[in-house]
């Protein structure tokens, strides 16, 4: 079972804070991977807020393929950031870790954001297809103001390896996952957090309903619903499908993955809609055991559980900085100065949402809607 550490703040902070929180939960991850997704970037990325950032890893050969492909696609490179790699015992460095800032092709500059998002996602999916067979290119995200780093190894060592303790890379929202590989092979694309068009999530636990959910998503005719090297990737895609594609308010994510039973639906104001949603999205119901932590494009972070609450999870902090963790020790490490008595341990009907800029925490209860 993986460990999850997410922090959201109104000030820029270093991903080392997440990594140190993960370190306190060390018994729960085994070095089979670390994933970091940073949103609302500071440091040198501050001036590139509007430009998409392609995050990934490539070999020397892959680097050339990537450059040629992006040139042909009409993307102009504006900036390259690469972690300052420090050799650490046990971690074999790959050729290039990168975050490349691009300018959109001329024809897309004035297009609406939704079309730009589709372009970025399609480019990412094609690059993934090109690079996957020989593992020459891995791409994790391609989106404005979002950066992703992934590698196999112990989180603390990887922090050192990527030089995150020395670098001034910072962000206002950072999701980090220390991976404990279970079902599938250790593989970079199986590493959380997963990202698609501004929606990001990470999960621990298993997803026993994985196959029907994957089949349902893949048959939506949406080109971004691919991958699934981890059964948890579907949680991100369900989020994307519910909130972006179907334009449901975020709270309905909870209603989709853990629908209420008929008698409980009866208590809700929106029962007629809920009944239809439950039927139409029946294959997206999860059975756990899971806690899901994620963010949406406006910067709202959330935590939600399976319908039996078979995994722990805690949210706490101070106004302006909140952390969403799979274990309380991680929260103690990240925000020790908070009033512990106000910590929130969401139960099976709850969805905890932290507003953008960590302004406020809200617990939404599914029974009351």
């Amino acid at each position, binding site marked *: *079972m993986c460990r999850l550490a997410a922090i959201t703040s109104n000030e820029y902070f270093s991903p080392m804070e997440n990594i140190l929180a993960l370190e306190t939960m060390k018994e729960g991850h085994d070095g089979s991977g670390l994933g970091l997704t940073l949103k609302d970037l500071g440091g040198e990325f501050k001036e590139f807020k509007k430009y998409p950032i392609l995050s990934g890893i490539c070999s020397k050969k892959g680097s050339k393929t990537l450059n040629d492909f992006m040139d042909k696609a009409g993307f102009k490179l504006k900036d390259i950031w690469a972690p300052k790699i420090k050799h650490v015992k046990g971690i074999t460095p790959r050729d290039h870790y990168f975050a490349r800032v691009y300018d959109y092709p001329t024809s897309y500059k004035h297009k609406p954001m939704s079309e730009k998002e589709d372009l970025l996602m399609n480019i990412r999916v094609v690059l993934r297809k090109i690079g996957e067979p020989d593992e020459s290119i891995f791409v994790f995200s391609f989106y404005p103001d979002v950066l992703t780093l992934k590698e196999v190894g112990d989180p603390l060592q990887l922090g050192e390896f990527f030089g995150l303790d020395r670098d001034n890379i910072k962000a206002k929202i950072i999701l980090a996952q220390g991976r404990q590989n*279970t*079902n599938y092979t250790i593989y970079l694309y199986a590493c959380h957090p997963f990202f698609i068009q501004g929606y990001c999530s990470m999960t621990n*636990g*298993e997803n*026993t*309903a*994985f*196959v*029907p959910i994957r*089949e*349902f998503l893949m*048959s*939506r*005719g949406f080109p971004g619903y691919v991958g699934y090297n981890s059964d948890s990737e579907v949680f991100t895609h369900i989020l994307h499908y519910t909130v972006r*594609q*179907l*334009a*449901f*308010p975020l*709270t*309905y994510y909870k209603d989709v993955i*853990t*629908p209420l*039973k*008929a008698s409980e639906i009866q208590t809700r*104001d*929106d029962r*007629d*809609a*809920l009944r*239809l*949603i439950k*039927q*139409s*999205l*029946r*294959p997206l*119901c*999860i*059975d*756990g*055991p899971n806690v899901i932590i994620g963010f949406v494009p406006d910067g709202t972070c959330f935590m939600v559980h399976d*319908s*039996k609450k*078979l995994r722990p999870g805690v949210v706490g902090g101070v106004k302006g900085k909140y952390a969403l963790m799979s274990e309380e020790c991680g929260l103690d490490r990240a925000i020790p100065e908070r009033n512990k008595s106000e910590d929130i341990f969401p139960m099976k009907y709850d969805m905890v949402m932290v507003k953008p800029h960590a302004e406020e925490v809200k617990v939404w209860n599914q029974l009351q*809607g």
Partner: protein
Amino acid sequence: MEPATRLDHNHKLSLREFPYIIRWRDDRCKRCGSCTAVCPVKAIEPTVKVQRIIQSEGPVPTPTAVRRIVHVIEQVTDMERYCTGCGACTLVCPNEAIEPEYNPQNKFLHFKNRGGEGYKRGGRKNDPSISTLDRLKFTRISMLTDPALDAGRHEFRVRTLLGRILPPDELPLRKVNGKLVVDKEIDKFIPPVREIFPIMIGSMSVGALSPPMWEGLAMGVAYLNEVEGLPVVMCTGEGGVPPRLLKSRFLKYITIQIASGYFGWDEIIHAIPHMVEDPAAIEIKYGQGAKPGDGGLLMAQKVLKLIASIRGVPQFVDLASPPTHQTEYSIEEAVAKMIQSMSMAWGFRVPVYPKISGTKTARAVLNNLARNPYAAALSIDGEDGGTGAAYNVSLDKMGHPIASNIRECYLDLVKQGKQNELPLIAAGGIAKKGNLAANAAALIMLGASAVSVGKYMLQATANCFGDEYNRCNLCNTGKCPRGITTQDPKLYRRLDSDKVAERVVEVFKAADVELKKIFAPMGRSTELPIGMSDGLSVDDKAIAERLEISYAC
């Protein structure tokens, strides 16, 4: 010159040709005559024989030949009166003196075509081998990495949906103050959907079944719904619905079938204005797994007063349903029209779905229905399904097994993204070996939304003798020794409808528990694991490949 009597008996069959041979024990028999009276086919008869016995009496051996007349029970060697192996004789014998024994060397089918008429019978395909369904195992057990659920403690929702389900992007919803509401201004048809227990009682008609049998099933279903909270539905089969039931509130647990004979439909249509509840669904029968492409037949001797009134026909006439609907010209027109007409009859408040025999062409039917927004489901009845009357050749040789038929249909729907829109109902051979919950769960994981059981219900709730060794299978003759498939009061008085109802309740309650015992270790409880094919394995590579599941040995 020809002898007056043919001493060689060359025109007679020997008992070795017969499927069941009666083992009768002279020493145990008290000659009460119960066995010969109860035998539904008169395969045994009392007779007298002359015996020559050497006996000796007194202290000194003085063997003497004595001729004695003895009473015996004898099996006849007339193919029209073959022993069906039902064992009614054993059941009534006070001294365990008689028992039919299966004869694997029989040449029954060589001779069962007297008068140029093919052998007709009831029951299901005579294939006692282990079916594919019984070979499937549930192998994805949640262990440590994802703790198994507790079938006794966690909340389980073993329910399914019957009815056309709208795709999520077509839901008529709009946002109001951060909440979704159904937009009444959008003129969107929202099809009716029922939440039911995923095991249904399949179509068996009033007429094919005796009054106490049908009544027992219906009472059991009503009890399950009203007392146990298990929303089980049962299908009427083609033969109408008892008038009182049509006008009762229990109609909501009943799926009414319409088939090619339209028996009883005049009465049903006329009762619509008086109905206080809508039926659960309407099933349009286009085919039956037991006898694909063949029509139904209720023989004249079963058409007594009650049946005649329910079906709206005169008494004592053969009631034949044609192999196809008279109006069936093409699936695009006739079937679509039929579905729409039936929907319209109940104001589009009742799901209407067709039932077909398992066939290689099922996917073609499916694809057509997938495009028809009024089609509520597709029920596919596999080759192992049962029937009250059919030609043996249809039962044994015609049809398609259900497992791969359901699987390919489901995967076809997945390709189109419609796997949740058009529910598939699987039938035919479920619980053939008694594994009701396991077979149902396997079919659900292959892609079925629900399953239908018929023959098993007769066996489990009314002790039907029939099996895959052609035991009994007399349903077509109206001489059912258990009183299940007969309209003869002397026979159906043997069956107690209350006991049948009790067994129906027991069967479904046990299946509910067993389904949970299957789903819990696989970590599923909230929704039915439809299409969760990673949970299944089979010990045969060819089956694994065909069903696109894993091989395990």
